[in-house]
């Protein structure tokens, strides 16, 4: 009913290779795009810049991690470290006087180089061993950042980000920051949507699923793993730089600590490995739900006049949030993206589903 398939016929390969093959899906995407463009006019700027903007930037970053973990199947526990490389390189470039457009690209490329150099060494091992090696990268990067005043300004210092400016226009308004984040997130999303239907995406999935079968088809596993690391690191670098330039406004080592790496991985896993829309949901859950649960607890305990002590109040939301992740993964191990997919597939034929099977 909602996603009616009747009358949808693809008569040529171009139409069959569209991103959205069902018109209802495309209409929904266009609707969300319009809302996204109109957001500064309909959402109060407090919400826009403290919730929506970080959600968009983290979604872009998490999509990058999903590329390497969900598509190429390589567990990565040092993603925040790669983001840090991009953030610091871009800020230093901008402080040096490089225009921000190029500074962002420099940040992305620096991440890409460091990320793939590291992958070059790390990819000699597989699976859990690779995960541990990437974790080591995180710790090395943490150490480098806290011990090199030339990069970070010292262990407890933070580095001020110069005012963001794109195409010669300084960006200072809330709406401006929002559109920068929106634009970047859109670019990454379109890239991922294209990846899903292109030869590169298929090759990455082949490497993830059965590397010996990929090899006999002519897919050089090592090359594609490195390519996945390089691309995902580029996305990480630019996302990290934008996070600093448009959200935090200063860079500090603890913004890119090991806890952050694990959080991004959690976003990807809860959202669903290899799922684009799921990544958005996963980021929302990990990033926004703790605050919401916190708010609900505070208001209900106040309204009911409960004498909850401060410590309980601080820990309960965390417990609820943890339980929520466990429950979601128990219901659908493939994450929120698969959950959405199930609902979509159900609506595709509703209310005629009784005719099936």
């Amino acid at each position, binding site marked *: 009913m909602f996603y009616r398939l009747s009358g949808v016929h693809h008569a040529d*390969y*171009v139409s069959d*290779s569209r991103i959205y093959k069902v018109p209802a899906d495309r209409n929904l995407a266009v609707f969300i795009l319009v809302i996204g463009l109109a957001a500064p006019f309909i959402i109060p700027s407090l919400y826009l810049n403290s919730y929506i903007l970080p959600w968009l930037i983290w979604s872009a970053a998490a999509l990058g991690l999903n590329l390497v973990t969900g598509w190429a199947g390589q567990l990565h526990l040092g993603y925040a470290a790669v983001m840090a490389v991009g953030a610091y390189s871009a800020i230093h470039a901008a402080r040096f006087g490089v225009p921000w457009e190029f500074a962002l690209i420099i940040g992305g490329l620096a991440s890409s180089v460091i990320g793939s150099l590291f992958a070059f060494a790390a990819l000699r091992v597989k699976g859990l061993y690779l995960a541990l090696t990437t974790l080591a990268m995180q710790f090395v990067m943490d150490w480098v950042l806290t011990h090199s005043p030339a990069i970070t300004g010292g262990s407890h210092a933070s580095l001020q980000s110069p005012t963001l400016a794109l195409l010669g226009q300084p960006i200072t308004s809330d709406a401006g920051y929002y559109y920068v984040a929106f634009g970047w997130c859109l670019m990454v999303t379109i*890239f991922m949507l*294209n*990846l899903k*239907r*292109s*030869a*590169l*995406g*298929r*090759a990455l*999935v*082949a490497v993830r*699923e*059965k590397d*010996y*079968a*990929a*090899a*006999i*088809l*002519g*897919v*050089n*596993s090592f090359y594609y793993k490195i*390519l996945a690391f*390089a*691309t995902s690191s580029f996305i990480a670098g630019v996302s990290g730089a934008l996070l600093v330039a448009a959200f935090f406004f200063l860079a500090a080592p603890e913004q890119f600590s090991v806890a952050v790496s694990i959080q991004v991985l959690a976003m990807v896993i809860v959202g669903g490995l*290899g799922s684009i829309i799921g990544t958005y949901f996963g980021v929302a859950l990990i990033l926004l739900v703790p605050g919401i649960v916190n708010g609900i607890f505070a208001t209900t305990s106040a309204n009911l006049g409960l004498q909850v002590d401060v410590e309980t109040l601080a820990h309960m939301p965390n417990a609820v949030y943890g339980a929520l992740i466990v429950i979601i993964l128990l219901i659908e191990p493939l994450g929120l993206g698969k959950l959405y997919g199930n609902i979509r597939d159900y609506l595709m034929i509703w209310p005629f589903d009784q005719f099936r099977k």
Partner: protein
Amino acid sequence: MSIQGNTTRAHQGDQPILECLGVERRFGGIVAVTGVDLAIHQGEIFGLVGPNGSGKTTLTNAITGFYPPNKGSVRLAGQDITGTAPHKVARLGIARTFQNLALFNGMSVLDNVLLGRHIHMHPGVLRTAFYWWAARPEEIENRKVVEEVIEFLQLESIRHELVDGLPIGLKKRVELARALVAEPTMLILDEPMAGMNQEEKGYMSRFILDARAERGVSVLLIEHHMDVIIGICDRMLALNYGEMIASGIPREVVKDPRVIEAYIGGSHG
């Protein structure tokens, strides 16, 4: 089985497509394959038989580069490919299927078969980013080739289905399609008819004969079904404990006492 290969196309004087010379592969102290010589000519369907553990799959792994031979050499159309990595072997024109199926279960039939075109495509990050201009023409071009093979193997109705849920007979056919779209000169089929009933075996045999007739591939066929080997193979080779025990025309080889002994067991003194 009444299917008979059109004509024997082995031209003895020609350069063989695939040639193994004294191939030996050991795993520690175990000699899996030793002293195997074989030559497959253009357009030939060559059977490889032997009891379990006789080294058939090891031999194909030695040819395709998964386990490079310890001794001897492998030549493809005169070019030495001994020990070449599998992803390079694919580019030289060898395609193969696996005994236990090596399809990508999370992907659709179409995507699986499209992956077979990998060596003819140029995947890249920028091409993906600028899909509409840089990747789409190539995707469409290759989709056409894939659709031809899908039609040839009668997979149209399951094109968009996930491979995971298909019955084994269809999975084997999808794997054959994926190998064929690469346009190989040499096709290695590792037990393509394992677990099939008589009717499915008949279908698969016809597909293999048609693939040779229409696409000119040469085939190395590993099978346990002797009726299939006799029905469609031009020549064959029997292995036992990693050694060649008989080779030649199938009808004669299967009568060889050493082959019968290897398969059924004989009366040693």
